[in-house]
């Protein structure tokens, strides 16, 4: 029997989360709830200096006054913020010098994920800073990086060792009071990555961090800060997969990028948190604030492949402050079953001759809802600003939805803005064309979906492109051969 789209839909529905497992490592977990004492305790636990504790408390007080945003096109049961444990760290945390010392159970986790450290080490030029439940447990390639003067460590370590950099830049792009989740993160962030590239240095390898949510019932609040000093270049990769859990897990990260004059940052994400089962139970709530600041001639490029999470609320943005700066956003968002994604970007043009490009591809299947929400803002001083946006959506089945909410605001007469959006399904004629040439329907769909996403997949670093394609396969298995 010929493979039809109905079969595909059925397969998609029955497709279980492949990476659903739970590593049994003893964790050091705080009691549930959030108050000033908890914030202080987190800070104390991390042996932070007084100014950091104060900074967290400021954020906490701001957060108490704020309300959860309601405007996103997603429906979910609001998490009870007093029913979450705000700190969880793997218990055995000696510093490892070699991979052999790492807890074998951890290694097994990574092997199941298909990204074992062994493999990672072999992949030339990749340094991995693994965050397992909030605390960094392994860092590799640190010495090579140190030679170049590059600082790549966990943010808690950076607070101890490089307080001047943290003091200067933390909260400078995403202020504590930016939004509800950013404030929450600022108050309780447990760990994350810190990266500093000195003047004129081109980082010789792709930096990558893997985040996982492991302990049941613990929200994870990472904080990432990447600073590229004048004329430097860095490519930063972030990938996530999370084990299967029944209750909803909250994930509210903050990522700040700072590209000083002539610097370039390329930030790639593959996100595959647990999306919930076929009935829409469980799954991760992903409320992320990501923003980059470009000084003169600087460039920030966001690339994301979003296949997981029950709820995604994520808008990696660029503030093009300096003249001639460039912002880019490439995104693939795949939703299946009951997943809901509201994602997009903001490009704020402040400087002259600034340019931005937005390419967003949404694929919805099952009963999922996929929204693009973006803002392009040209301020009155941003002469000769240029923007190109393209948002394409692909629908599979008639129970899903694809939505586009672009906001375009221009205040300068030299602005040139183009926005284009299309929504379509895989055409019967396209499949027929392939069938005619001896390509079966399943392969044909794979071909078309791959072609649809190509513009974005091409932007991923090679190592990640492989994993991204694998994730697309898993998310839409049966359709992508």
């Amino acid at each position: 029997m010929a493979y039809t789209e109905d079969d595909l839909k059925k397969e998609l529905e029955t497709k279980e989360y492949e990476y659903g497992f739970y590593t049994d490592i003893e964790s050091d977990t705080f009691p549930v709830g959030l108050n000033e004492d908890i914030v202080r305790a987190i800070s104390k636990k991390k042996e932070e200096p007084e100014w950091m504790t104060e900074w967290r408390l400021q954020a906490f007080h701001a957060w108490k006054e704020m309300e959860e945003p309601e405007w996103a096109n997603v429906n979910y049961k609001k998490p009870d913020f007093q029913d979450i444990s705000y700190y969880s760290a793997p218990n055995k945390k000696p510093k490892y010098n070699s991979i052999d010392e790492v807890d074998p159970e951890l290694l097994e986790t990574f092997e199941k994920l298909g990204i074992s450290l062994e493999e990672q080490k072999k992949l030339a030029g990749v340094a991995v800073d693994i965050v397992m439940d909030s605390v960094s447990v392994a860092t590799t390639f640190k010495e090579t990086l140190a030679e170049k003067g590059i600082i790549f460590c966990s943010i808690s370590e950076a607070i101890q060792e490089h307080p001047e950099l943290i003091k200067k830049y933390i909260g400078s792009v995403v202020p504590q009071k930016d939004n509800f989740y950013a404030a929450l993160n600022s108050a309780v962030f447990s760990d994350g990555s810190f990266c500093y590239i000195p003047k004129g240095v081109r980082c010789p390898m792709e930096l990558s961090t893997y985040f996982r949510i492991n302990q049941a019932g613990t929200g994870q609040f990472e904080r990432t800060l990447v600073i590229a000093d004048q004329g430097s270049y860095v490519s930063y990769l972030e990938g996530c997969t999370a084990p299967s859990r029944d209750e909803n897990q909250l994930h509210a990260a903050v990522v700040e990028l700072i590209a000083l004059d002539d610097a370039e940052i390329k930030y790639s994400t593959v996100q595959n948190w647990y999306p919930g089962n076929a009935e829409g139970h469980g799954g991760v709530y992903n409320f992320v604030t990501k923003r980059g600041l470009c000084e003169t001639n600087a460039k920030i490029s966001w690339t994301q492949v979003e296949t997981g999470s029950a709820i995604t609320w994520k808008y990696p943005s660029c503030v093009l402050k300096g003249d001639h700066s460039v912002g880019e956003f490439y995104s693939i968002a795949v939703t299946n079953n009951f997943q809901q994604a509201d994602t997009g970007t903001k490009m704020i043009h402040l400087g002259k001759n600034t340019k931005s490009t937005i390419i967003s591809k949404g694929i919805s299947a099952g009963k999922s809802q996929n929204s693009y929400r973006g803002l392009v803002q040209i301020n009155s001083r941003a002469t000769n600003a240029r923007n190109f946006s393209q948002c394409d959506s692909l629908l599979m089945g008639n129970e899903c939805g694809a939505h586009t909410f672009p906001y375009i605001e221009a205040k300068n007469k030299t602005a040139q803005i183009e926005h284009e959006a299309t929504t379509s399904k895989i055409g019967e004629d396209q499949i027929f064309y392939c069938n005619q040439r001896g390509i079966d329907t399943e392969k044909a769909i794979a071909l078309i979906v791959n072609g649809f996403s190509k513009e974005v997949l091409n932007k991923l670093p090679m190592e990640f492109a492989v994993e991204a394609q694998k994730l697309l396969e898993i998310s839409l298995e049966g359709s992508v051969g």
Partner: protein
Amino acid sequence: MDLKEKLVSSFLAFENTINVDDTVHDIRSQAIKTFEEKGFPTKKEEAWKYTSLNTVLKHDYSIFPKEENAIEFKDIKKYFLHDLDTYKIVFIDGKYSSHLSETTHEKIDVCLMSSALTYDKYRAVIDNYFNKIARQDGLTSLNTAFSKEGAYIYIPKNKLADKPIQIIHFSTGNEAAQMLQPRNLIVVEENSHVQIIERHQSLTDNPVLTNSVTEIFVDKRAIVDYYKIQNDNQNASLIDNTYIEQQAQSVASVHTFAFGGNITRNNLNFYQKGEGIDSILNGVTILEEKQHVDHNTLVHHTEPNCESHQDYKGIFDEKSTGVFNGKIIVNKEAQKTNAFQSNNNILLSDKATINSKPQLEIFADDVKCSHGCTIGQLDDNALFYMRSRGIGEKEAKALLMYAFANNVLESVKIPQLKNRINALIAKKLGVDIGFDL
């Protein structure tokens, strides 16, 4: 006392001045409650993010139209399409002006809302259609509560309205500040066809606020062409709420030409209720000084095999602001929908602003939907080409802008109206070119 309180407290007095049947009375009472609850929209509402009514609402408007104010025909002749034979429904300060109008009851009804709400012979139509598709938001409810006068057009089955219908609202400024709330009802039955031209014109420098609601019902295979000319003076603000319900295989088009006014807000809503429907929404906006025009459109596709086409062009100079907020919703039953939306803008000044929000909400998979939005400038090469051939800078720019807006103008089906709009554009761009080359 602010405007809202004033309106709410004068409702009873208003109700007492007119006798209407119970159904309409109930609708009105319900509507004033809704308005009391919801009030005027503020910038906090997503749909009003870019348009604030604060400056408009601060005036002390007189709410009730006084006795008929006479205007000499020669003073207002220029606002009519006089080279075209039409039916006319003319209102002066919200009151029907019988000597300027030309209505009919032969075969089709082109008459007044006040008669339709009062006389029994219209009862069936009013019961079936009045306030059936108008949204229950603050502004529309306010209009419903005070609905009394406006145009009533009823085209029965298989009839062709023999000539276009002009609806013109004048305000004379005999009051210091005036609020007008016209309410129009247009019902076009199966296989019928009608063309309507609507215009609001203020003859005074006193502030005028018009909160208009028009409900249009387009039955099977009927065709409606609706043209809105908005070329009012700088003290007149207009909130125009139009609701259109279409049945199978009907074609409805609304052209909005927004050249004037202080703050203009167009809420244009299309509800498709059958298969094979075509909805057309076109607009040309040319603004200067501190003018503000907000086009808020909605096309709701609920049945398969329908189309919608939106094309809005805007040219913004000086400190003007243009807003386009278009939404297309495709229900999951509405397979094979083709929905297109395009919004192109030219900014001529650094003080002018454009806010564009073209949205798609799609729940069906087998559809072709797209939207596009551009913001740009006039092409320097094209300008140079014309200037090097002896065309003055102003004229060259005007020609380019005219060409930019042309594909919307091309779809105007009444030649005399097209000429008139061409002339309005030439005047607005400050050139003396005929354009109808």
